[in-house]
């Protein structure tokens, strides 16, 4: 298993796309921190990168990589290896190289300019989002054999999580404005890893505004240790469930 992981990582490194991604993240985060006169504004720009670019790159790259290594997977399957091990080591290799890219590209500048709780939350959620969207990409590739269809599905999933879902939540919020929606909002946010990550960062960044009445509900929930553990577990299950389900599918898949 270790050998496959090692092979996947070296293959990805040779691929150069991840290197370019790392360079892009590094350049972007260094420039947002050095351009803005106060570094909290830099954090805001970085927030957008983490919430939009990281999931996008993670899901698209993973999908394309999986389709391109279809022959390699076939080769591996013909060896005396368990399918579980093959699939999980592919996932581990891909997820860890994306996480390392994020840690180098965005983590180092954040640690240089904003080595505080906000910065650390951002790094943690960025890593989790990289892994989550790799997991979702695995789900997309195992479900569809056609490359174009699979990439399309990946893009649609990204669009859904980063844009459409919030639109739906906003719509629901306006429709049910007369009802107490705070707890429902917390439940809804668990359905979208990007939202959950954003709220965790928001509670650090905009704590003054979040301390208003409804804000206090969110703060009480997400700010307390129970809420933090809850959100962490929800984010973890966003990794575990797609990986587990795609492994099941891959085990019985007719290659």
């Amino acid at each position, binding site marked *: 298993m270790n050998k496959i992981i090692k092979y996947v990582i070296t293959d990805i490194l040779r691929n150069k796309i991840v290197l370019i991604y790392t360079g892009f993240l590094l350049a972007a985060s260094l420039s947002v921190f050095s351009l803005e006169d*106060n570094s*909290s*504004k830099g954090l*805001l720009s970085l*927030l*957008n990168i983490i*919430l*939009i670019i990281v999931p996008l790159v993670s899901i698209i790259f993973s999908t394309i990589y999986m389709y391109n290594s279809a022959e390699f997977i076939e080769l591996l399957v013909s060896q005396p290896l368990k399918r579980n091990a093959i699939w999980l080591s592919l996932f581990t290799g891909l997820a860890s190289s994306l996480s390392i890219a994020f840690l180098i590209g965005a983590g180092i500048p954040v640690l240089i300019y904003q080595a505080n709780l906000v910065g650390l939350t951002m790094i943690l959620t960025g890593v989790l989002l990289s892994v989550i969207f790799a997991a979702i990409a695995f789900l997309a590739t195992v479900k569809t054999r056609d490359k174009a269809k699979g990439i399309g599905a990946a893009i649609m999933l990204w669009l859904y999580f*980063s*844009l459409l879902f*919030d*639109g739906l*939540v*906003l719509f629901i*919020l*306006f429709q049910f*404005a007369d009802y107490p*929606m*705070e707890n429902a*909002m*917390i439940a809804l*946010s668990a359905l979208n890893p*990007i*939202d959950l990550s*954003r*709220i965790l960062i*928001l509670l650090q*960044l*905009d*704590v*003054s*505004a*979040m*301390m*208003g*009445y*409804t*804000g*206090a509900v*969110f703060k009480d929930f997400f700010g307390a240790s129970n809420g933090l553990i809850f959100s962490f577990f929800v984010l973890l299950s966003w990794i575990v469930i797609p990986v587990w389900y795609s492994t099941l599918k891959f085990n019985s898949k007719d290659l």
Partner: protein
Amino acid sequence: MYCSATAANIYVGAKRSHKTVSSAILSARDGDTIFVDAGHYREKNLIIDKSIILKGIDFPVLDGEKKYEIISITANGAVVDGFKLIHSGVSSLEDLSGIKVYDSRDVVIRNNILEDTFFGIYIQNGINCSIENNQLIAVGFEEQQSGNGIHCWKGDSLKVIGNQISGHRDGIYFEFVKNSVIWRNVSKNNLRYGLHFMFSNDDMYVNNVFRNNGSGVSVMYSNRIKMFSNYFEENWGDAAHGILLKEISDGFMEGNYFTRNTSGIYMEGANRIYMKRNVFENNGWALKIQASCMDVVLELNNFIGNTFDVGTNGSLVLNKFKNNYWDKYEGYDLDKDKIGDIPYRPVSMYSMIVEKYPPAMILFRSFITSLLDKTEKLIPSLTPENLKDTAPMMKRAF
């Protein structure tokens, strides 16, 4: 000495002729000075009805035994200096206090420590009294069972200077007080307001710190108030404001700092307020200005790192924003006069949405809400058309 016939020194202490302060006061005449040695005195209710100076050496303790008002002053020109007052009685009916001044003028209360008093220092109809350098610490847990730190009800030319107040209901309370000054006080961790102003005209407060009070500072129904260089910090909660201005007219605010409040300033029915060179930093809302405000002028203020710059509840705008620095301003300055060429609209669409649907705060800073905000900037529809800074500064105003 022969010439000092009118001003004698009287000493109180375990080894002195007077064992209690009350017996010393009984034998004193106007103008005398009573020195009190360190010790623990249970004087029940000490009444100062002569113009004397009561001076404590090394903070003698006056204990109210949780039953009595500790010192009551009914004489003009009395001075209480250097005592430690503990455990006053608690009564909402009589407003028992550490030190209470009744209908007197020129009273001085300075350098005292008040611990666990119901009301701290209470001026009831005083003229030209000073309250200086006192420390007031209360341990009330509920608003109902706690009194105010420095409570002034009806007065003129009072001076409240250099006091430290914490744990009371309101740190400093002014009602019907005119021409007075509040200077260099620190009022923090009080249950309700750091400073509470009602029906008090022509007052000024300077260089005070109001931090982490239940609902910040509240100034209501008063005219011609001047506020300089005060710090309003960390007042958190839906009903908490750095400062609440309600029905205030002709106020002047300069050089104040509003930092990390849920809302820095909340204005309702405020008229003709001139705000200049204030700093709003890291607040939820820097300024909530309701449509009922008129002729409020904001000039040369710095708005930095606030979640929302300005919130409002209607489309009517009768106020003026000029030459402020907004860190969210995205305009340009082609003629290099350091003033932006396009106006800045400090009310974002999302702040209007959050005002109407508070739970929407959970979607803040998401992709779709940023998109909505950008669209609104191009084609304003929800935000008030006239609420804008026509000449925003490109760099910090000061």
